[in-house]
């Protein structure tokens, strides 16, 4: 809900100009009324309409500036005849009218050019730029006509009292936590310019191989093509650019040249996706970066958590090499503690904490004692599997004993493993257990099949079922049974959904008498993880969230202590790779300015990015014009069950070139331009 004088946003028709207070209508949308803490917005104008927050807005100038911004923001234009010339003509004619030299025929030409742009432009930006302009010309015709008839400039034409801030976006870009320029990288594939594709990705996302494989792709949920038939396979198309770079042994296609050193130093704690991303963008900005990593290997959870068959380490290492190639210094086998943090504060200009969430939470059942053998946290279980599979780092003797392993790797031959979970981590556990030759692998999940698919992916769930994982839905562990501290069996309760008689959400209720006992050698809790924040010196009194993660304002990622930043799971709680990347990218940008100026600021682009995310760019009700429905989404081939269940080969082959091109052709290039006047 927003208080506006006038709005045509998403088809609403609100005009409160001249109305009394009690007759005012509010806009139904989260429009950016406050640009930032220093400035109120005067107007918002974009692909889907225009909203005025101030009665004094010069609408003729507003229209002119919007057309001008389309010219300025030309990365997304210049690529089709209607957009290139049409955009220029819009601007020239509007400016002519605004400065008091227009004629009636200019209004006609504006409408004519607008129509052709709307019908034939290459991307949505060209198709939609005329929309708010026509709205203004229709609803405020008198103001335009006044300029023409009197041959006088518009009311604020010669005043520099307003800032016009524009921003390019797209539904997918907006949905992506890292705001990757998705249409650009898909266009790179379509045009067979794979280097351009990769550079577009790396503008905001250095881990192209990784997020071309194991991203839960929230972008696809907000892909506009869904309104027509099926979403674009956005995630997998990212691999084309990354593979091109790797296959041909090019150096690294960075989005811009590394700036010369600015003589500032930053410490990054943790070499996972957030740490790597922070380091990458700080280094690009000419800042010296030391990354401290507790493990002997780089990559964090993606390296030691995500299994080889989903994320081959040689591909991930390419992403890591791209970061290294900028001169980032990595210090492994070094667990940072509070004393070191105190020292870092003196030695470095800023510190980024990106330590993730590496403590497996309990399942909260009776007799859940960590000393029982067979009780094995998911994070540690996956560490042991992946260190051996990917790096040949064998399980140390003490751990072998602790976990009852017959040899120095995770061999579950003849064993029964039960995992409690429902998210990606638990899927990784059970599928790794299959590959470790377990006799039986069971996943217990409190909710139903539909929810597990929503929390992971359809493919992930079905592949696990195919490989032989047994899923028991609506179930939970009630008790662990042990003999002399060795796990023997589990008591499992069953639940059912009971509809709320008051019409609310149905409740999960235990089914009395349905509990049963299940033999079991290992219980792997994979319900969630928490952050280990012992490294933060207590006297810093850094604020925490109610989830016991580090608190920031979610915009600049500075903690309550100046110069100490946090990003990724340790800030947000266990979340996705792309979320960690997005946060760390923003944190790096803020930190880069902070170490150079001492100030915490956001760029206009970042402010607009946050505004648009609040407004939400994707409109699932929109009817799509100008694209033919019924062109199916491409699916890349996967290994058969027999080919994959006893080894760590990558399950997905990835697109063939033919599939990739067909998929890229489906992308509708839904770029939009939005602008705030303040």
């Amino acid at each position, binding site marked *: 809900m927003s208080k506006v004088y006038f709005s045509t946003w998403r088809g609403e028709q609100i005009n409160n100009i001249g109305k009394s207070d009690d007759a005012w209508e509010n806009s139904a949308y989260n429009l950016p009324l406050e640009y930032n803490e220093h400035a109120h917005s005067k107007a918002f104008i974009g692909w889907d309409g225009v909203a005025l927050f101030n009665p004094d807005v010069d609408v003729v100038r507003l229209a002119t500036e919007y057309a001008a911004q389309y010219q300025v923001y030309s990365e997304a234009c210049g690529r089709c005849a209607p957009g290139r010339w049409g955009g220029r003509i819009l601007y020239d004619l509007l400016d002519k009218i605004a400065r008091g030299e227009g004629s009636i025929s200019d209004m006609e030409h504006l409408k004519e050019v607008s129509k052709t742009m709307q019908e034939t432009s*290459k991307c949505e930006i060209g198709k939609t730029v005329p929309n708010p302009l026509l709205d203004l010309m229709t609803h405020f015709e008198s103001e335009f006509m006044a300029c023409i008839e009197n041959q006088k400039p518009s009311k604020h034409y010669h005043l520099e009292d307003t800032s016009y801030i524009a921003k390019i976006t797209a539904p997918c870009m907006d949905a992506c936590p890292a705001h990757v320029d998705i249409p650009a990288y898909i266009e790179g594939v379509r*045009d067979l310019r794979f280097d351009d594709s990769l550079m577009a990705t790396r503008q905001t996302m250095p881990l192209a191989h990784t997020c071309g494989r194991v991203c839960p792709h929230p972008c696809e949920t907000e892909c506009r093509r869904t309104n027509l038939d099926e979403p674009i396979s956005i995630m997998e198309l990212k691999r084309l650019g990354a593979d091109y770079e790797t296959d041909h042994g090019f150096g690294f296609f960075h989005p811009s040249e590394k700036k010369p050193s600015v003589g500032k130093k930053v410490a990054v704690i943790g070499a996972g996706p957030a740490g790597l991303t922070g380091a990458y963008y700080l280094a690009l900005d000419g800042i010296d970066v030391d990354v401290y990593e507790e493990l002997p290997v780089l990559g964090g959870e993606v390296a030691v958590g995500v299994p080889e068959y989903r994320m081959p380490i040689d591909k991930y290492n390419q992403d890591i090499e791209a970061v290294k190639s900028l001169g980032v210094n990595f210090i492994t086998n070094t667990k940072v503690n509070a004393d070191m943090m105190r020292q870092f504060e003196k030695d470095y200009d800023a510190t980024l904490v990106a330590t993730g969430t590496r403590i497996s939470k309990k399942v909260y059942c009776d007799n859940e004692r960590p000393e029982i053998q067979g009780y094995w946290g998911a994070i540690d279980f996956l560490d042991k599997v992946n260190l051996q599979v990917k790096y040949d780092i064998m399980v140390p003797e003490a751990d072998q004993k602790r976990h009852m392993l017959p040899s120095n790797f995770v061999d579950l031959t003849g064993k029964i493993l039960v995992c409690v979970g429902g998210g990606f981590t638990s899927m990784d556990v059970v599928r790794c257990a299959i590959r470790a030759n377990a006799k039986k692998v069971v996943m217990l999940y409190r909710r139903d099949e539909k929810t597990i698919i929503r929390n992971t992916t359809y493919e992930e769930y079905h592949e696990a079922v195919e490989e032989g994982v047994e899923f028991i839905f609506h179930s939970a562990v009630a008790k662990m049974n042990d003999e002399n501290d060795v796990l023997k069996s589990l008591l499992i309760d069953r639940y059912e959904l009971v509809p709320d008689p008051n019409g609310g959400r149905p409740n999960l209720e235990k089914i009395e008498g349905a509990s049963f006992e299940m033999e079991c050698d290992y219980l792997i809790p994979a319900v969630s993880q928490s952050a280990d924040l012992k490294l933060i010196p207590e006297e810093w009194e850094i604020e925490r969230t109610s989830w016991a993660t580090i608190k920031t304002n979610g915009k600049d990622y500075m903690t309550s202590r100046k110069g100490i930043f946090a990003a990724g799971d340790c800030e947000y709680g266990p979340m996705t790779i792309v979320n960690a990347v997005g946060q760390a990218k923003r944190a790096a940008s803020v930190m880069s300015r902070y170490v150079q100026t001492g100030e915490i600021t956001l760029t206009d682009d970042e402010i607009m990015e946050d505004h648009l995310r609040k407004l939400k760019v994707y409109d699932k009700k929109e009817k799509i014009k100008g694209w033919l429905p019924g062109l199916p989404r491409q699916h890349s081939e996967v290994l058969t069950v027999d080919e994959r269940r006893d080894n760590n080969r990558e399950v997905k082959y990835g697109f063939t070139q033919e599939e990739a091109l067909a998929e890229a052709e489906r992308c509708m290039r839904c770029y939009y331009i939005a602008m705030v006047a303040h």
Partner: protein
Amino acid sequence: MINFTINGQPVSANKGETILQAARKAGFYIPTMCYLEKTTPCASCRLCVVETDKTEGLILSCQTPPTEGLGVIIDSDRLQTERTNIMRLYDVNHPLECGVCDKSGACDLQNKTLEFGVSAQHFSAKDQHRAIEHWGLINYDPSLCILCEKCVHVCNEIIGDDAIELQFGGYKSSVIPKNSDTLDCTFCGECIAVCPVGALVSSNFQYSANAWELTQIPATCVHCSAGCSLHYEVRHTSNALGGESKIYRVTNDFEHTTLCGAGRFGFDFDQQSEKDEAEFDKAVAALQNASAIRFSSMITNEEALILQRIKEKLGIKLYNEEARAYQSFMNAYSSVSGKAGFGGSLDAIKQSDGIIVVGGRISSDNPMVRYAMTTAARHNGAKVVYMHPIEDDLLQNVITQFVKYEVGTEEGVVAMLAKTLLENADIGDELQSYFKELDEGYLCAESNVGDEEYARILKTFARLKRKTLIIGSDLLNHKRAANIARLCAMIETHTEFSVVVVAPSVNTIGVSLICDLDADKGGEKVVGYNAPGDYTMGSFADSMLKLPSLNAQEGTFVSISHQVLPTNVAVAFNGYTLNDIANVFGIEAQYTIDYTAQLPRNRGFNGTKFDDLGNFFGTLGEDNRGYTLDNIDVEVSGSLEEVETLPEFNGSVVYRCNPINQFNGYTQKTSQLEKDTTLRGSSQFAAAAKIGDGDKIRIEFPQGTQERIFKLDPTLKGTIALVPAYDVGFGVLNEQYRFEKVKIMRMGSES
């Protein structure tokens, strides 16, 4: 097959075809300004929008495949209005300089402006000053540019130079050199060819003639074995009656074919002569007394047949070491494959999703093979393994695995490659034991190619479906060429690979099929035809009897794709021809092309007369040039020999390799092509040979010495330098094994 309708008429499309492609096939016209059949759609002009019964707005026909039952309307008032408006936009501020523009008369913008009746500037926008760029052989005028992006697409997708890109800037957008201040490319000029307006033009041709004054002579390029289609565009040089005509430029049917820089810019190699009877008599006398004729493969099939007839009539020998090497190679090859020719072609390379290249410097040896590889790499994501002692920078964006072997060890490398590729093939016990008995450890160690390289090839190719093996010309003159050929033939016979052998010259293959060649042991009284001899005739300044050059002749060549391709006379020649000489010996024919129908049927020629040969492409790209040679069955009698001890090449080694766009004495004669004659080497080579950049050096080959300037080339690595051969005579590149141990002596510095 997808069935749909266009304007109510039923049409069908293959999977992967777009509405535009299906429409064109069915004979419907949809206007376009940026569409190029051989690249991915540029999708910039938007003229090809159509209406359908399943969409509200207009959709783009060039990038949309039809769906079953779709009803498409390709002309309507609504479409006409929008298309007209697009043309009005294209015409905004387009400079009114058609009077002097090179493109005028053949300009897509002119054509479409007239087609849509845009007779005045309807919209206006502020004009902008834009400077003309001078990029060597190419000029770019951004104010004429309509930003269709065709140039950018061919450069990246077909050529592989990836030397230009679009600088996005809305109204200010333009084409700029990529990662460079000026254009840094191989100057194929294909960007000029595809430019629909006069924005990209040949700097040499600019302002010299109008499109409508030029006569297009369809011909076949003579510079390498690809047999590219081209048009010599000729016009008189003066308005006076009887003004000599000359070639003004070369163009190509760019929708369907591609041309390299040598083909496009290297056309002025003809020379004039009058009939000099005295010299003619000397030539006849020389032949009468000759023991042999030495000739190059830059010759038509018809003249090759005349030489064969002269040989038979006079009982003399025929020398052509280059073609003889190819002949022996293919004889050995056929003895295993059972076919006279290899099975691959340029088209097969383009279609491939996996390519292995062994033993040749493809980017300079045969640009069309390179372009076919680029096409495959970009469009099919082809995996490309390049095996050679020297890395090639130009191929980096094509190659996915570079395998470096030691000079001279090709037999071992090909044996290991065959073993790898035949691993899962059904090859019988004898062959199996042959490969089992290969001394893998020795071959890998001596060739310096580890078994992990072969394992990687095996893994990469396991899932690929359309595979090509390209045999470079290094292997043709290898001491062990015959066994190498048999190993390659084993691969084609027992796997899904098709093989292409990169023949060196325009008609190496034709000569090898037509002539019985003798080993060139030198000797006295040799008549050279475009080759050294005691008496020489041919098309060079130092030929004693001047005969017409290949752009002044009609006849046919056999291309690398086994096509028999016609070429025509672009410039008149008033002197004698080889046929005139043959007539003296009673080998009678009125015209040289009378021999076209007599080309040997037992080698695959089909007896078609010259005048019945087409030389054009259909509107949908159907190749109507000449005909394809029959691949004749031959007896299978060959068996593999044991791999010999692999030789070692220590010390200073040079590789005969021409610079880009240089091939032979013809390219050397032309005015536009760069003539780099330096020995190019890495700093490592320079250090070993104790020479530096710009040094004057003497290279001692076993056959003689050459004096050259040494140029330090930062793109090269390793201990082998590249020495050109185009400037020392025909066929020299491929008369011996291309690598040579030499002595290098510093003679001073350049100044």
